[in-house]
């Protein structure tokens, strides 16, 4: 463990400022933006009356609209959740909202009214058990008061399945914390390919770290040449939750990489995680240990 000194704080603060003055996701290229938050806000102003939906019995129209407005006014908070296995869906949702907020809000409106909706090449038609549960999730932080986000996460988890979901494919109450909602690396990349019109490339796997000699340089280069970079991490090393000497290395978390730079022998990284942009100084060894997958997207 090494101490950061005041100079390194100044440098980190500088990179933080750079991140703050760019998009909500620094790695997202402007050329792929289809609509803006302003477009989405104007659209939402035209929606004055919304009737209850027979498809989503526990999602009140008033709270649904409040949640859609939150997407536009405070997108960072919109996808925050605690104690769930929704991190993969959270990571891609930030990009969804950054790339085409108007399209996303319209899709959510269709999903609410009709119980089904299309996004990219995906036709979301959530099951009855999922539709019944949306609006009722509790003890998940700000997700408790965001019924539209509950609809979106549950619909994604219900639609996309990977090998981690084989033994629990049907939703039962509480499954948002179980393997039903888990996302393996291949499933995450498949979701990106189907939901967006990007060229999605990935390196890494669920149990084996990618054979990249200089990971910092690799990530730095991908940040410059791609529109978005996602990291698949062993989050338990980044945020310790228990003290153990030995631990089986398993990645469990997805984040959007916003910034990476090197300073002496330390690496400054900024990433979108939950409802906050997180900035951290880590060692190159820790970076190599925690990263199990790198997904980068380019325009087709």
């Amino acid at each position, binding site marked *: 463990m090494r101490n950061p000194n005041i100079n390194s704080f100044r440098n980190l603060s500088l990179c933080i400022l750079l991140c703050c003055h760019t998009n909500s996701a620094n790695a997202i290229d402007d050329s792929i933006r289809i609509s803006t938050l302003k477009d989405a806000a104007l659209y939402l102003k035209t929606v004055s009356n919304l009737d209850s939906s027979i498809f989503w019995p526990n999602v009140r129209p008033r709270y649904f609209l409040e949640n859609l407005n939150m997407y536009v006014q405070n997108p960072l908070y919109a996808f925050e959740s605690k104690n769930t296995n929704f991190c993969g869906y959270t990571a891609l949702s930030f990009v969804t909202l950054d790339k085409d907020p108007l399209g996303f809000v319209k899709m959510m409106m269709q999903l609410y009214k009709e119980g089904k909706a299309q996004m990219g090449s995906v036709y979301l038609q959530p099951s009855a058990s999922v539709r019944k549960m949306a609006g009722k999730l509790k003890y998940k932080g700000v997700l408790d008061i965001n019924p539209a986000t509950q609809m979106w996460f549950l619909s994604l988890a219900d639609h996309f399945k990977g090998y981690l979901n084989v033994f629990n494919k049907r939703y039962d109450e509480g499954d948002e914390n179980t393997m039903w909602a888990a996302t393996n690396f291949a499933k995450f990349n498949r979701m990106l390919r189907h939901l967006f019109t990007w060229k999605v490339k990935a390196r890494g796997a669920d149990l084996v770290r990618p054979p990249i000699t200089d990971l910092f340089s690799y990530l730095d280069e991908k940040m410059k040449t791609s529109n978005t970079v996602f990291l698949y991490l062993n989050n338990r090393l980044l945020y310790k939750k*228990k003290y153990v000497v030995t631990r089986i290395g398993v990645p469990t978390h997805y984040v959007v990489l916003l910034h990476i730079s090197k300073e002496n022998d330390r690496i400054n990284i900024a990433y979108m995680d939950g409802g906050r942009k997180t900035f951290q100084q880590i060692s190159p060894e820790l970076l190599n240990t925690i990263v199990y997958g790198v997904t980068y997207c380019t325009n087709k």
Partner: protein
Amino acid sequence: MQLKFYNILVVLIAACTFISCSTAMKFPTRYYNEHKGILDSIRYNYESAYDKKPFHIQFKDKRFRYISFEMLSDTFRYIYNFDLEAHDFADTLYKYNYNTPQIISLIADMSSIRCIWISHLDYYENRQKKNLVFISMRHNQLESFFKGEKYYALAFFNERQFFDKQGRLTDKSERKRMREINGQVFHKITDRICYAITGNFR
């Protein structure tokens, strides 16, 4: 004779089981009562410092020398690691306008009772945002070679809470539903303070 021996053995096993179970059950409440003064001081010191500028603290090692300090804003989180034996920590707190003496004193109190994590948790009741102070501690009684280490977590609420007959924290609007904090069911110490013995300290 043999029957008498078996009877004594059964009584001894039952007594041992009862004693070990009752010790395990009593430990959390006893621990809180024995350390009430310092635990309350940690809580109020933290709340007061947090209100001025939000942060979380985690001790990173068994010797309580290294910490991870999370500076929080509405949209950002900055995570820095410090060696408490170096001078950088106080300098940094001062530079970022934290109440340096108060936080240094808080950290000394935390270290004295092996408190490894302190944070401010938001939760929602009837769509209203509320918060609690969450702290976790290590304790020799909770370390097991076979089961792994457990942590003693305390949740300090600002309002009266509701409990079932077994003393488990329940949801205010659905009294039969257990109310979870960090995915854990908590138990009553007082009507505003609850505990859990948990596998994760945060």
